[in-house]
């Protein structure tokens, strides 16, 4: 696999897997409006993943976006582990979404300056959508954090539980450094400062405590995941694997 291919897969997989997670809310949302909101966000993420996977397939020359989504195993997926974490209750989903949205907004802003024109164009398109997602998730952090005693306690616990998955956002390995050097990739490490500002500010407004940066999960850059990813793939890939090359 070429370096650029793997770099794009990392970005695409996070959007794809989180999109699948959010789609699980469809028909189960806490209210009709939120059901529609989460499904819409899921759809945007799926669109972003599709554009990236199509580009990846073009570089590869032999694979389609569908091949990449449906014919890879767990160890060949490079999404951040936070994306595969369970939806839990609505507050758990919102905490996960807010942390992801605030990171991806900063990430795509930098990626839009990439020397790779297609990556830059996809990033520019995505920024508009992520801005809107972030507005939605931050509003809910405020409402739940500064809401009732129960909602506050619940979402504080959600943040405490998910925090250990945020370390991966800012990791840089050899491949990232190489892509940065070629002016294609982003320096994730440099995004931390600005991310801290957004997150601290919102948590403060929501009267929530920022969890301590303690032990952080890691590994997704090398295809290491929590056991949850396998379960997602077994559902997401079932039809194309059971009926290979079926058309409908």
């Amino acid at each position, binding site marked *: 696999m070429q370096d650029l291919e793997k770099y794009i897969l990392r970005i695409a997989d996070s959007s794809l897997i989180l999109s699948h997670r959010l789609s699980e809310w469809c028909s189960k949302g806490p209210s009709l*409006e*939120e059901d*529609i*909101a989460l499904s*819409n*966000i*899921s*759809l*945007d*993420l*799926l*669109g*972003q993943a*599709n*554009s990236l996977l199509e580009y990846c397939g073009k570089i590869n020359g032999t694979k389609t976006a569908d091949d990449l989504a449906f014919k890879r195993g767990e160890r060949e997926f490079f999404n951040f582990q936070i994306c595969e974490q369970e939806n839990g209750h609505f507050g758990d989903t919102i905490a996960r979404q807010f942390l992801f949205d605030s990171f991806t907004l900063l990430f795509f802003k930098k990626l839009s300056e990439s020397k790779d*024109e*297609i990556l*830059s*164009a*996809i990033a*520019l*398109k*995505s920024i*508009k*959508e992520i801005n*809107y997602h972030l*507005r*939605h998730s931050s509003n809910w952090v405020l409402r739940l954090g500064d809401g009732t005693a129960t909602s506050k306690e619940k979402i504080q616990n959600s943040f405490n539980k998910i925090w250990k998955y945020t370390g991966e956002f800012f990791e840089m390995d050899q491949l990232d450094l190489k892509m940065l050097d070629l002016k294609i990739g982003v320096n994730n490490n440099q995004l931390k400062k600005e991310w801290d500002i957004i997150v601290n500010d919102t948590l403060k407004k929501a009267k929530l405590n920022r969890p301590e940066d303690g032990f952080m999960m890691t590994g997704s850059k090398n295809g290491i995941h929590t056991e949850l990813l396998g379960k997602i793939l077994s559902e997401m890939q079932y039809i194309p694997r059971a009926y290979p090359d079926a058309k409908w």
Partner: protein
Amino acid sequence: MRSGKIEKIWNILGSVPDPEIPVISVVELGVIRNVEYIENEYIISVTPTYSGCPAVKTFQDDIKTQLKKNDIDNFKIDIVYKPAWTTDWMTKETKQKLKKYGIAPPEKIIECPQCNSKKIELISEFGATACKSMHKCTECLEPFEHFKCI
């Protein structure tokens, strides 16, 4: 100057309705970015509205059907991402059509499409499609959709 051939393609595209909002065409929606004639082939550049908008696939199919109906087979649809689609590309006339259809057009100040009141409430940031949000007029009490500005 557009040549007669190219103009004809634009006219055909102008008769393809948006699959979700049939009162406006795909040209009025602003997703057709360019039509060129290169080496005996029409290249139609199309940009998606939202990355995941399911209507994108539908209007591409509709464009193909409409062109073939007009005996045009030598064409290719190219997807372009840059510059990203924006509601600024909609003309005043298009916005009027949306309003008449009951959808508040993409403007910073939202007016109720029924009674023109500016006293409105947000019901939900997301509507039935990715491009719309849900509002309610506090004067005539009618709920309505708003085409989001992006």
